[in-house]
Protein backbone atom coordinates (compact mmCIF):
# COMPACT_ATOMS: atom_id res chain seq x y z
CA UNK A 1 0.00 0.00 0.00
CA UNK A 2 1.44 3.33 -1.00
CA UNK A 3 1.56 6.30 1.32
CA UNK A 4 -0.92 8.43 -0.58
CA UNK A 5 -3.87 6.04 -0.55
CA UNK A 6 -6.35 7.26 2.00
CA UNK A 7 -6.69 5.11 5.09
CA UNK A 8 -10.40 4.72 4.61
CA UNK A 9 -12.45 5.30 1.54
CA UNK A 10 -16.21 4.88 1.50
CA UNK A 11 -18.29 5.39 -1.59
CA UNK A 12 -22.06 5.20 -1.99
CA UNK A 13 -22.42 2.91 0.99
CA UNK A 14 -25.93 1.55 1.43
CA UNK A 15 -27.11 -0.84 4.13
CA UNK A 16 -30.68 -1.99 4.47
CA UNK A 17 -32.03 -4.12 7.28
CA UNK A 18 -35.24 -5.90 6.45
CA UNK A 19 -36.53 -3.00 4.35
CA UNK A 20 -35.22 -0.23 6.61
CA UNK A 21 -32.41 1.80 5.10
CA UNK A 22 -29.92 2.33 7.92
CA UNK A 23 -27.20 3.85 5.78
CA UNK A 24 -28.08 5.61 2.59
CA UNK A 25 -25.39 6.50 0.06
CA UNK A 26 -22.76 7.56 2.55
CA UNK A 27 -19.38 8.56 1.17
CA UNK A 28 -16.27 9.93 2.80
CA UNK A 29 -12.52 9.49 2.92
CA UNK A 30 -10.18 9.63 5.86
CA UNK A 31 -6.54 10.48 5.30
CA UNK A 32 -3.72 8.67 7.09
CA UNK A 33 -3.08 9.89 10.59
CA UNK A 34 -6.31 11.83 10.70
CA UNK A 35 -8.79 11.71 13.56
CA UNK A 36 -12.35 11.71 12.33
CA UNK A 37 -15.32 12.34 14.58
CA UNK A 38 -18.59 10.69 13.77
CA UNK A 39 -21.59 12.59 15.01
CA UNK A 40 -25.24 11.85 14.76
CA UNK A 41 -28.36 11.27 16.78
CA UNK A 42 -29.23 7.77 17.93
CA UNK A 43 -30.14 5.49 15.07
CA UNK A 44 -28.44 7.69 12.50
CA UNK A 45 -26.35 4.82 11.16
CA UNK A 46 -23.06 5.53 12.90
CA UNK A 47 -22.60 2.09 14.41
CA UNK A 48 -23.76 0.38 11.24
CA UNK A 49 -21.22 2.31 9.17
CA UNK A 50 -18.48 1.41 11.64
CA UNK A 51 -19.44 -2.25 11.62
CA UNK A 52 -19.32 -2.31 7.85
CA UNK A 53 -15.88 -0.68 7.94
CA UNK A 54 -14.60 -3.46 10.17
CA UNK A 55 -16.01 -6.14 7.89
CA UNK A 56 -18.32 -7.45 10.60
CA UNK A 57 -21.45 -6.64 8.61
CA UNK A 58 -21.65 -6.89 4.85
CA UNK A 59 -22.80 -3.78 2.98
CA UNK A 60 -25.89 -3.93 0.79
CA UNK A 61 -24.13 -1.90 -1.88
CA UNK A 62 -21.29 0.54 -2.26
CA UNK A 63 -17.56 0.34 -1.84
CA UNK A 64 -15.53 0.41 1.33
CA UNK A 65 -11.77 0.17 1.31
CA UNK A 66 -9.32 0.31 4.18
CA UNK A 67 -5.67 1.07 3.39
CA UNK A 68 -6.41 0.52 -0.28
CA UNK A 69 -7.94 -2.94 0.21
CA UNK A 70 -11.62 -3.58 -0.36
CA UNK A 71 -13.38 -4.81 2.77
CA UNK A 72 -15.74 -6.96 0.73
CA UNK A 73 -13.07 -8.93 -1.12
CA UNK A 74 -10.11 -8.81 1.29
CA UNK A 75 -12.00 -9.05 4.57
CA UNK A 76 -9.36 -11.12 6.34
CA UNK A 77 -6.47 -8.81 5.50
CA UNK A 78 -8.48 -5.72 6.33
CA UNK A 79 -9.24 -7.04 9.81
CA UNK A 80 -5.51 -6.92 10.54
CA UNK A 81 -5.43 -3.20 9.81
CA UNK A 82 -8.23 -2.34 12.19
CA UNK A 83 -8.47 -2.05 15.95
CA UNK A 84 -12.14 -1.95 16.77
CA UNK A 85 -14.01 -1.18 19.94
CA UNK A 86 -17.72 -1.92 19.49
CA UNK A 87 -20.61 -0.01 20.95
CA UNK A 88 -21.09 -0.68 24.70
CA UNK A 89 -17.62 -2.21 24.74
CA UNK A 90 -18.47 -5.89 25.27
CA UNK A 91 -15.87 -7.70 27.39
CA UNK A 92 -15.82 -11.17 28.91
CA UNK A 93 -16.65 -10.85 32.59
CA UNK A 94 -14.71 -13.82 33.85
CA UNK A 95 -11.21 -12.99 32.66
CA UNK A 96 -8.41 -10.96 34.14
CA UNK A 97 -7.33 -7.79 32.35
CA UNK A 98 -3.88 -9.02 31.39
CA UNK A 99 -5.25 -12.44 30.39
CA UNK A 100 -7.81 -10.86 28.12
CA UNK A 101 -5.33 -8.55 26.47
CA UNK A 102 -2.88 -11.41 26.04
CA UNK A 103 -5.54 -13.55 24.37
CA UNK A 104 -6.59 -10.71 22.08
CA UNK A 105 -2.99 -10.00 21.20
CA UNK A 106 -2.45 -13.63 20.23
CA UNK A 107 -5.59 -13.54 18.10
CA UNK A 108 -4.29 -10.44 16.38
CA UNK A 109 -1.17 -12.36 15.45
CA UNK A 110 1.38 -10.85 17.85
CA UNK A 111 4.22 -13.13 18.84
CA UNK A 112 4.64 -14.03 22.50
CA UNK A 113 7.84 -12.04 23.05
CA UNK A 114 6.58 -8.94 21.29
CA UNK A 115 3.21 -9.23 22.98
CA UNK A 116 4.53 -9.14 26.51
CA UNK A 117 6.46 -5.94 25.78
CA UNK A 118 3.52 -4.38 24.01
CA UNK A 119 1.17 -5.44 26.81
CA UNK A 120 3.18 -3.49 29.34
CA UNK A 121 3.24 -0.46 27.05
CA UNK A 122 -0.49 -0.53 26.52
CA UNK A 123 -1.27 -1.05 30.20
CA UNK A 124 0.94 1.91 31.00
CA UNK A 125 -0.61 4.03 28.26
CA UNK A 126 -4.15 3.33 29.39
CA UNK A 127 -3.30 3.59 33.08
CA UNK A 128 -4.35 0.02 33.73
CA UNK A 129 -1.27 -1.22 35.57
CA UNK A 130 -3.03 -1.18 38.92
CA UNK A 131 -5.82 -3.44 37.71
CA UNK A 132 -3.92 -5.78 35.43
CA UNK A 133 -4.66 -8.80 37.64
CA UNK A 134 -8.24 -7.87 38.43
CA UNK A 135 -11.23 -9.64 36.91
CA UNK A 136 -12.86 -7.56 34.20
CA UNK A 137 -16.40 -8.21 35.45
CA UNK A 138 -15.55 -6.53 38.73
CA UNK A 139 -14.00 -3.39 37.26
CA UNK A 140 -15.72 -0.02 37.21
CA UNK A 141 -17.04 1.34 33.96
CA UNK A 142 -14.09 3.69 33.47
CA UNK A 143 -11.62 0.84 33.72
CA UNK A 144 -13.67 -1.38 31.44
CA UNK A 145 -13.75 1.36 28.86
CA UNK A 146 -10.01 1.71 29.05
CA UNK A 147 -9.56 -2.04 28.70
CA UNK A 148 -11.57 -1.74 25.48
CA UNK A 149 -9.37 1.07 24.23
CA UNK A 150 -6.22 -0.82 25.23
CA UNK A 151 -7.49 -3.79 23.26
CA UNK A 152 -8.14 -1.64 20.18
CA UNK A 153 -4.63 -0.15 20.11
CA UNK A 154 -2.91 -3.34 21.23
CA UNK A 155 -1.66 -4.56 17.87
CA UNK A 156 -0.80 -1.04 16.69
CA UNK A 157 -3.13 -1.20 13.71
CA UNK A 158 -3.02 1.65 11.19
CA UNK A 159 -6.75 2.25 11.65
CA UNK A 160 -8.63 2.45 14.93
CA UNK A 161 -12.40 2.55 15.08
CA UNK A 162 -14.08 3.26 18.38
CA UNK A 163 -17.81 3.44 18.88
CA UNK A 164 -18.50 5.90 21.68
CA UNK A 165 -15.26 5.43 23.61
CA UNK A 166 -16.04 8.05 26.26
CA UNK A 167 -19.58 7.01 27.11
CA UNK A 168 -20.12 6.63 30.84
CA UNK A 169 -16.78 8.09 31.88
CA UNK A 170 -16.28 10.83 34.45
CA UNK A 171 -14.68 14.12 33.31
CA UNK A 172 -11.27 13.11 34.58
CA UNK A 173 -11.36 9.83 32.68
CA UNK A 174 -12.66 11.60 29.59
CA UNK A 175 -9.58 13.79 29.76
CA UNK A 176 -7.34 10.73 29.92
CA UNK A 177 -9.08 9.10 26.99
CA UNK A 178 -8.93 12.33 25.02
CA UNK A 179 -5.19 12.64 25.59
CA UNK A 180 -4.80 9.01 24.66
CA UNK A 181 -6.60 9.51 21.38
CA UNK A 182 -4.71 12.73 20.71
CA UNK A 183 -1.43 10.89 21.27
CA UNK A 184 -2.32 8.60 18.37
CA UNK A 185 -2.62 11.54 16.00
CA UNK A 186 -0.33 11.25 13.03
CA UNK A 187 0.56 7.62 13.75
CA UNK A 188 -2.82 5.99 13.43
CA UNK A 189 -6.01 6.88 11.68
CA UNK A 190 -8.79 7.10 14.22
CA UNK A 191 -12.53 7.17 13.79
CA UNK A 192 -14.55 7.83 16.92
CA UNK A 193 -18.23 8.37 17.36
CA UNK A 194 -19.62 10.31 20.24
CA UNK A 195 -22.56 12.22 21.56
CA UNK A 196 -20.33 14.47 23.59
CA UNK A 197 -19.74 17.29 21.19
CA UNK A 198 -17.00 19.30 22.94
CA UNK A 199 -15.16 16.00 23.12
CA UNK A 200 -15.21 15.59 19.36
CA UNK A 201 -14.35 19.22 18.82
CA UNK A 202 -11.20 19.01 20.91
CA UNK A 203 -9.90 15.69 19.64
CA UNK A 204 -10.95 15.46 16.03
CA UNK A 205 -9.36 16.96 12.96
CA UNK A 206 -12.51 16.53 10.99
CA UNK A 207 -16.13 15.92 11.84
CA UNK A 208 -18.73 14.01 9.92
CA UNK A 209 -22.34 14.60 10.86
CA UNK A 210 -24.67 11.84 9.86
CA UNK A 211 -28.42 11.73 10.20
CA UNK A 212 -31.02 9.30 8.91
CA UNK A 213 -28.29 7.32 7.20
CA UNK A 214 -26.97 10.30 5.23
CA UNK A 215 -23.97 12.55 5.62
CA UNK A 216 -25.46 15.95 6.30
CA UNK A 217 -22.25 17.87 6.88
CA UNK A 218 -18.52 17.23 6.99
CA UNK A 219 -15.36 19.23 7.49
CA UNK A 220 -13.28 20.73 10.26
CA UNK A 221 -15.33 22.18 13.11
CA UNK A 222 -14.55 25.68 11.79
CA UNK A 223 -15.63 24.75 8.27
CA UNK A 224 -18.83 23.31 9.60
CA UNK A 225 -19.71 26.49 11.45
CA UNK A 226 -19.24 28.47 8.29
CA UNK A 227 -21.04 25.98 6.13
CA UNK A 228 -23.99 25.54 8.43
CA UNK A 229 -24.42 29.13 9.64
CA UNK A 230 -22.95 31.04 6.70
CA UNK A 231 -22.17 34.10 8.80
CA UNK A 232 -20.37 35.21 11.91
CA UNK A 233 -21.89 37.28 14.65
CA UNK A 234 -20.77 39.64 17.39
CA UNK A 235 -22.29 40.45 20.74
CA UNK A 236 -21.91 43.90 22.14
CA UNK A 237 -23.13 45.84 25.12
CA UNK A 238 -23.62 49.44 24.28
CA UNK A 239 -25.30 52.55 25.65
CA UNK A 240 -26.03 55.97 24.23
CA UNK A 241 -27.92 57.10 21.20
CA UNK A 242 -27.20 54.01 19.18
CA UNK A 243 -30.38 54.03 17.14
CA UNK A 244 -29.09 56.98 15.19
CA UNK A 245 -25.35 56.53 15.38
CA UNK A 246 -24.90 52.80 15.11
CA UNK A 247 -26.02 52.15 11.48
CA UNK A 248 -23.68 54.89 10.32
CA UNK A 249 -20.70 53.41 12.13
CA UNK A 250 -21.52 49.91 11.04
CA UNK A 251 -21.79 50.92 7.41
CA UNK A 252 -18.35 52.44 7.64
CA UNK A 253 -16.84 49.23 9.03
CA UNK A 254 -18.55 46.78 6.72
CA UNK A 255 -21.72 47.18 4.64
CA UNK A 256 -22.94 43.68 5.45
CA UNK A 257 -23.03 44.32 9.19
CA UNK A 258 -26.54 44.48 10.54
CA UNK A 259 -28.20 44.43 13.91
CA UNK A 260 -30.10 41.21 14.23
CA UNK A 261 -31.23 41.38 17.84
CA UNK A 262 -31.66 44.14 20.35
CA UNK A 263 -32.09 43.46 24.03
CA UNK A 264 -33.77 45.63 26.67
CA UNK A 265 -31.54 48.22 28.40
CA UNK A 266 -30.32 47.20 31.83
CA UNK A 267 -30.08 49.40 34.95
CA UNK A 268 -27.01 51.25 33.67
CA UNK A 269 -28.66 51.84 30.32
CA UNK A 270 -26.60 49.31 28.38
CA UNK A 271 -28.31 47.25 25.69
CA UNK A 272 -27.17 43.91 24.44
CA UNK A 273 -27.02 43.79 20.66
CA UNK A 274 -26.20 41.00 18.25
CA UNK A 275 -24.63 41.91 14.94
CA UNK A 276 -24.31 39.57 12.03
CA UNK A 277 -22.12 39.76 8.98
CA UNK A 278 -21.30 37.59 6.01
CA UNK A 279 -17.62 38.49 6.37
CA UNK A 280 -15.46 35.54 7.39
CA UNK A 281 -12.49 37.40 8.77
CA UNK A 282 -12.37 38.97 12.18
CA UNK A 283 -13.91 42.44 12.24
CA UNK A 284 -13.56 42.73 15.98
CA UNK A 285 -10.71 45.20 16.10
CA UNK A 286 -12.02 47.66 13.47
CA UNK A 287 -15.47 47.43 14.99
CA UNK A 288 -14.13 48.18 18.43
CA UNK A 289 -12.05 51.13 17.24
CA UNK A 290 -14.84 52.74 15.25
CA UNK A 291 -17.41 52.27 18.00
CA UNK A 292 -15.07 53.64 20.64
CA UNK A 293 -14.13 56.58 18.45
CA UNK A 294 -17.74 57.68 18.16
CA UNK A 295 -18.51 60.01 21.06
CA UNK A 296 -22.24 59.34 20.92
CA UNK A 297 -21.78 55.70 21.87
CA UNK A 298 -20.51 54.10 25.03
CA UNK A 299 -19.25 50.56 24.54
CA UNK A 300 -18.89 48.16 27.43
CA UNK A 301 -18.10 44.87 25.76
CA UNK A 302 -17.65 43.31 22.39
CA UNK A 303 -17.08 39.70 21.55
CA UNK A 304 -17.29 37.45 18.61
CA UNK A 305 -19.81 34.66 18.99
CA UNK A 306 -18.45 31.20 18.31
CA UNK A 307 -21.29 28.85 17.58
CA UNK A 308 -20.49 25.66 19.46
CA UNK A 309 -20.35 22.38 17.67
CA UNK A 310 -23.57 21.67 19.46
CA UNK A 311 -25.30 24.44 17.53
CA UNK A 312 -23.76 23.15 14.33
CA UNK A 313 -24.89 19.65 15.14
CA UNK A 314 -28.45 20.69 15.91
CA UNK A 315 -28.65 22.85 12.81
CA UNK A 316 -27.12 20.19 10.59
CA UNK A 317 -29.30 17.36 11.85
CA UNK A 318 -32.36 19.55 11.53
CA UNK A 319 -31.33 20.33 8.00
CA UNK A 320 -30.90 16.62 7.53
CA UNK A 321 -34.47 16.05 8.66
CA UNK A 322 -35.75 18.62 6.23
CA UNK A 323 -33.75 17.03 3.45
CA UNK A 324 -35.19 13.66 4.41
CA UNK A 325 -38.74 14.96 4.56
CA UNK A 326 -38.41 16.62 1.19
CA UNK A 327 -39.36 14.39 -1.73
CA UNK A 328 -36.11 12.68 -2.70
CA UNK A 329 -35.72 9.84 -5.16
CA UNK A 330 -36.37 6.83 -2.98
CA UNK A 331 -33.76 4.12 -2.80
CA UNK A 332 -35.22 0.67 -2.75
Amino acid at each position, binding site marked *: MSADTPAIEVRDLVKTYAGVTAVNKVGFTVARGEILGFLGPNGAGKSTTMRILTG*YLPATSGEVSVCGLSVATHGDEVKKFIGYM*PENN*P*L*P*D*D*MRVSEYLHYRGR*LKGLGRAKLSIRLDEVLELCDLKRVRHRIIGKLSKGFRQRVGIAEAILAEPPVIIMDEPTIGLDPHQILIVRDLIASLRGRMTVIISSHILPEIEVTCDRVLIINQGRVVAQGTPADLRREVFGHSSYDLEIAGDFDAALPEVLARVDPSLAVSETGAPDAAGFCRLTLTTSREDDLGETLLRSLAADTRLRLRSLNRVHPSLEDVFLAATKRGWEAVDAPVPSVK
Partner: protein
Amino acid sequence: MKHFLTILSHELRMLLVNASTYVAAVLFLGIMGFIFSGVLDTYSKAAQESSPATVFFQLFWIPVLFMVPLLTMKCISEERRLGTLETLLTAPVTTAEVVLGKYFAAYILYLLLWASTGGFFYILHHFAQDPRLLDFGPMAGGYLFVAISGLFYIAVGIFASSLSRNQAVAGILSFTLLFILIVGLNYAGTLEVMNLESMKPVHAALDYVRTFRHLDDFSQGIVDTRQVLYYLSGSVLMLIFSILSIEVKLLHS
Protein backbone atom coordinates in the same frame (compact mmCIF):
# COMPACT_ATOMS: atom_id res chain seq x y z
CA MET B 1 -6.26 -22.30 10.95
CA LYS B 2 -3.51 -20.15 12.47
CA HIS B 3 -5.62 -19.10 15.43
CA PHE B 4 -7.29 -22.44 16.08
CA LEU B 5 -4.88 -23.38 18.85
CA THR B 6 -5.10 -19.93 20.44
CA ILE B 7 -8.87 -20.17 20.62
CA LEU B 8 -8.79 -23.80 21.73
CA SER B 9 -6.42 -23.13 24.60
CA HIS B 10 -8.38 -20.05 25.59
CA GLU B 11 -11.67 -21.92 25.59
CA LEU B 12 -10.25 -24.83 27.55
CA ARG B 13 -8.82 -22.44 30.06
CA MET B 14 -12.13 -20.64 30.40
CA LEU B 15 -13.94 -23.95 30.88
CA LEU B 16 -11.45 -24.99 33.54
CA VAL B 17 -11.68 -21.78 35.56
CA ASN B 18 -15.45 -21.75 35.38
CA ALA B 19 -17.29 -22.96 38.45
CA SER B 20 -20.19 -24.37 36.42
CA THR B 21 -17.83 -26.85 34.78
CA TYR B 22 -17.01 -28.31 38.19
CA VAL B 23 -20.65 -28.40 39.21
CA ALA B 24 -21.40 -30.29 36.00
CA ALA B 25 -18.43 -32.60 36.60
CA VAL B 26 -19.52 -33.41 40.14
CA LEU B 27 -23.08 -34.10 39.01
CA PHE B 28 -21.79 -36.26 36.20
CA LEU B 29 -19.50 -38.31 38.42
CA GLY B 30 -22.24 -38.56 41.05
CA ILE B 31 -24.74 -39.97 38.61
CA MET B 32 -22.22 -42.24 36.95
CA GLY B 33 -21.14 -43.54 40.35
CA PHE B 34 -24.74 -44.17 41.26
CA ILE B 35 -25.32 -46.08 38.03
CA PHE B 36 -22.09 -48.01 38.48
CA SER B 37 -22.87 -49.05 42.04
CA GLY B 38 -26.37 -50.01 40.86
CA VAL B 39 -24.82 -52.24 38.24
CA LEU B 40 -22.50 -53.82 40.79
CA ASP B 41 -25.44 -54.37 43.11
CA THR B 42 -27.20 -56.55 40.54
CA TYR B 43 -23.95 -58.46 39.98
CA SER B 44 -23.58 -59.15 43.65
CA LYS B 45 -27.06 -60.72 43.80
CA ALA B 46 -26.88 -63.02 40.85
CA ALA B 47 -24.50 -64.05 38.12
CA GLN B 48 -25.04 -62.16 34.85
CA GLU B 49 -24.23 -62.99 31.28
CA SER B 50 -22.39 -59.81 30.30
CA SER B 51 -19.63 -57.95 32.07
CA PRO B 52 -20.36 -54.87 34.24
CA ALA B 53 -18.70 -52.61 31.68
CA THR B 54 -21.24 -53.60 29.02
CA VAL B 55 -24.18 -52.81 31.26
CA PHE B 56 -22.55 -49.62 32.46
CA PHE B 57 -22.04 -48.29 28.93
CA GLN B 58 -25.56 -49.25 27.94
CA LEU B 59 -26.70 -46.40 30.15
CA PHE B 60 -24.26 -43.94 28.56
CA TRP B 61 -27.13 -41.88 27.13
CA ILE B 62 -28.33 -40.68 30.53
CA PRO B 63 -25.27 -38.54 31.24
CA VAL B 64 -24.96 -37.60 27.55
CA LEU B 65 -28.45 -36.09 27.57
CA PHE B 66 -27.65 -33.64 30.30
CA MET B 67 -23.86 -33.29 30.14
CA VAL B 68 -23.59 -32.32 26.49
CA PRO B 69 -26.13 -29.48 26.74
CA LEU B 70 -24.46 -28.25 29.94
CA LEU B 71 -21.02 -28.23 28.36
CA THR B 72 -21.97 -26.66 25.07
CA MET B 73 -24.99 -24.43 25.60
CA LYS B 74 -22.85 -21.50 26.71
CA CYS B 75 -20.29 -21.65 23.90
CA ILE B 76 -21.71 -19.38 21.26
CA SER B 77 -24.95 -18.09 22.74
CA GLU B 78 -23.13 -16.42 25.62
CA GLU B 79 -20.74 -14.67 23.25
CA ARG B 80 -23.64 -13.50 21.19
CA ARG B 81 -25.56 -12.26 24.22
CA LEU B 82 -22.59 -10.36 25.66
CA GLY B 83 -21.65 -8.98 22.26
CA THR B 84 -18.15 -10.42 22.48
CA LEU B 85 -18.86 -12.34 19.29
CA GLU B 86 -18.47 -8.99 17.54
CA THR B 87 -15.01 -8.36 19.00
CA LEU B 88 -14.06 -11.96 18.29
CA LEU B 89 -15.12 -11.88 14.65
CA THR B 90 -13.59 -8.46 13.97
CA ALA B 91 -10.22 -9.85 15.03
CA PRO B 92 -8.42 -11.53 12.14
CA VAL B 93 -9.99 -14.94 12.76
CA THR B 94 -12.44 -16.89 10.65
CA THR B 95 -15.79 -18.20 11.86
CA ALA B 96 -14.57 -21.73 11.23
CA GLU B 97 -11.64 -21.23 13.60
CA VAL B 98 -13.95 -19.92 16.29
CA VAL B 99 -16.41 -22.78 15.95
CA LEU B 100 -13.73 -25.47 15.77
CA GLY B 101 -11.86 -24.02 18.73
CA LYS B 102 -14.95 -24.05 20.88
CA TYR B 103 -15.98 -27.47 19.62
CA PHE B 104 -12.71 -29.19 20.43
CA ALA B 105 -12.47 -27.48 23.80
CA ALA B 106 -15.87 -28.86 24.77
CA TYR B 107 -14.99 -32.25 23.29
CA ILE B 108 -11.74 -32.51 25.22
CA LEU B 109 -13.56 -31.69 28.43
CA TYR B 110 -16.21 -34.29 27.59
CA LEU B 111 -13.51 -36.91 27.07
CA LEU B 112 -11.81 -35.92 30.33
CA LEU B 113 -15.05 -36.38 32.23
CA TRP B 114 -15.61 -39.79 30.72
CA ALA B 115 -11.99 -40.74 31.31
CA SER B 116 -12.47 -39.97 34.98
CA THR B 117 -15.09 -42.73 35.19
CA GLY B 118 -12.17 -45.07 34.54
CA GLY B 119 -11.56 -44.63 38.25
CA PHE B 120 -14.66 -46.72 38.97
CA PHE B 121 -13.19 -49.66 37.15
CA TYR B 122 -9.89 -49.16 38.90
CA ILE B 123 -11.59 -49.18 42.31
CA LEU B 124 -13.55 -52.29 41.35
CA HIS B 125 -10.39 -53.98 40.17
CA HIS B 126 -8.50 -52.94 43.27
CA PHE B 127 -11.03 -54.08 45.82
CA ALA B 128 -12.88 -56.95 44.15
CA GLN B 129 -9.71 -58.73 43.04
CA ASP B 130 -11.93 -60.67 40.68
CA PRO B 131 -10.69 -60.72 37.07
CA ARG B 132 -14.12 -61.86 35.87
CA LEU B 133 -15.62 -58.49 36.82
CA LEU B 134 -13.13 -56.55 34.79
CA ASP B 135 -13.41 -57.44 31.16
CA PHE B 136 -11.01 -55.24 29.27
CA GLY B 137 -12.57 -55.73 25.80
CA PRO B 138 -16.08 -54.31 26.42
CA MET B 139 -14.55 -51.53 28.49
CA ALA B 140 -12.21 -50.38 25.72
CA GLY B 141 -15.02 -50.76 23.19
CA GLY B 142 -17.34 -48.70 25.37
CA TYR B 143 -14.84 -45.90 25.78
CA LEU B 144 -14.09 -45.93 22.07
CA PHE B 145 -17.79 -45.66 21.35
CA VAL B 146 -18.16 -42.77 23.77
CA ALA B 147 -15.23 -40.97 22.14
CA ILE B 148 -16.56 -41.40 18.62
CA SER B 149 -20.22 -40.70 19.35
CA GLY B 150 -19.15 -37.73 21.49
CA LEU B 151 -17.81 -36.03 18.36
CA PHE B 152 -21.33 -35.98 16.97
CA TYR B 153 -23.15 -35.11 20.20
CA ILE B 154 -20.89 -32.20 21.06
CA ALA B 155 -21.30 -30.88 17.50
CA VAL B 156 -25.08 -31.05 17.97
CA GLY B 157 -24.70 -29.03 21.18
CA ILE B 158 -22.53 -26.42 19.45
CA PHE B 159 -25.07 -26.14 16.67
CA ALA B 160 -27.91 -25.59 19.16
CA SER B 161 -25.81 -22.96 20.91
CA SER B 162 -25.20 -21.12 17.66
CA LEU B 163 -28.93 -20.81 17.06
CA SER B 164 -29.97 -18.82 20.09
CA ARG B 165 -28.60 -16.04 22.23
CA ASN B 166 -30.37 -17.54 25.20
CA GLN B 167 -28.40 -20.24 26.97
CA ALA B 168 -31.47 -21.99 28.32
CA VAL B 169 -33.07 -22.20 24.88
CA ALA B 170 -29.83 -23.54 23.44
CA GLY B 171 -29.59 -26.10 26.24
CA ILE B 172 -33.14 -27.37 25.82
CA LEU B 173 -32.74 -27.44 22.06
CA SER B 174 -29.62 -29.55 22.24
CA PHE B 175 -31.27 -31.84 24.82
CA THR B 176 -34.21 -32.34 22.45
CA LEU B 177 -31.99 -32.95 19.43
CA LEU B 178 -29.91 -35.47 21.36
CA PHE B 179 -33.00 -37.19 22.70
CA ILE B 180 -34.33 -37.58 19.17
CA LEU B 181 -30.96 -38.85 17.93
CA ILE B 182 -30.39 -41.39 20.67
CA VAL B 183 -33.76 -42.47 22.04
CA GLY B 184 -36.21 -41.22 19.40
CA LEU B 185 -34.60 -42.91 16.41
CA ASN B 186 -34.20 -46.11 18.39
CA TYR B 187 -37.86 -46.05 19.33
CA ALA B 188 -38.97 -45.21 15.78
CA GLY B 189 -37.25 -48.39 14.58
CA THR B 190 -39.44 -50.52 16.83
CA LEU B 191 -42.75 -49.01 15.71
CA GLU B 192 -45.37 -51.41 14.33
CA VAL B 193 -45.66 -49.42 11.13
CA MET B 194 -42.03 -50.23 10.30
CA ASN B 195 -42.97 -53.84 9.66
CA LEU B 196 -44.94 -52.87 6.55
CA GLU B 197 -43.39 -53.86 3.24
CA SER B 198 -43.53 -50.27 1.94
CA MET B 199 -41.59 -48.97 4.94
CA LYS B 200 -38.65 -51.29 4.38
CA PRO B 201 -36.15 -48.65 3.17
CA VAL B 202 -37.04 -46.39 6.09
CA HIS B 203 -36.69 -49.29 8.47
CA ALA B 204 -33.29 -50.13 7.04
CA ALA B 205 -32.17 -46.54 7.40
CA LEU B 206 -33.40 -46.37 11.00
CA ASP B 207 -31.68 -49.62 11.72
CA TYR B 208 -28.45 -48.15 10.43
CA VAL B 209 -28.59 -45.13 12.77
CA ARG B 210 -29.62 -47.04 15.90
CA THR B 211 -27.22 -45.84 18.53
CA PHE B 212 -27.73 -48.82 20.84
CA ARG B 213 -26.82 -51.25 18.13
CA HIS B 214 -23.62 -49.30 17.50
CA LEU B 215 -22.87 -49.51 21.19
CA ASP B 216 -23.41 -53.27 21.22
CA ASP B 217 -21.10 -53.68 18.26
CA PHE B 218 -18.39 -51.58 19.84
CA SER B 219 -18.69 -53.48 23.12
CA GLN B 220 -18.21 -56.72 21.26
CA GLY B 221 -15.11 -55.34 19.59
CA ILE B 222 -16.69 -54.75 16.18
CA VAL B 223 -15.63 -51.39 14.80
CA ASP B 224 -17.80 -50.91 11.75
CA THR B 225 -16.47 -48.12 9.54
CA ARG B 226 -20.04 -47.36 8.44
CA GLN B 227 -20.94 -46.50 12.00
CA VAL B 228 -17.79 -44.44 12.48
CA LEU B 229 -18.63 -42.66 9.25
CA TYR B 230 -22.14 -41.94 10.51
CA TYR B 231 -20.81 -40.12 13.56
CA LEU B 232 -18.02 -38.36 11.70
CA SER B 233 -20.23 -37.13 8.88
CA GLY B 234 -22.89 -36.10 11.38
CA SER B 235 -20.42 -34.00 13.33
CA VAL B 236 -18.96 -32.41 10.20
CA LEU B 237 -22.46 -31.54 9.04
CA MET B 238 -23.40 -30.04 12.40
CA LEU B 239 -20.21 -27.96 12.49
CA ILE B 240 -20.85 -26.66 8.99
CA PHE B 241 -24.38 -25.75 10.04
CA SER B 242 -23.02 -23.95 13.10
CA ILE B 243 -20.62 -21.88 10.99
CA LEU B 244 -23.40 -21.08 8.54
CA SER B 245 -25.80 -20.19 11.31
CA ILE B 246 -23.37 -17.65 12.75
CA GLU B 247 -22.66 -16.13 9.36
CA VAL B 248 -26.28 -16.06 8.25
CA LYS B 249 -27.27 -14.24 11.42
CA LEU B 250 -24.69 -11.58 10.62
CA LEU B 251 -25.90 -11.31 7.09
CA HIS B 252 -29.46 -10.71 8.19
CA SER B 253 -28.82 -8.86 11.39
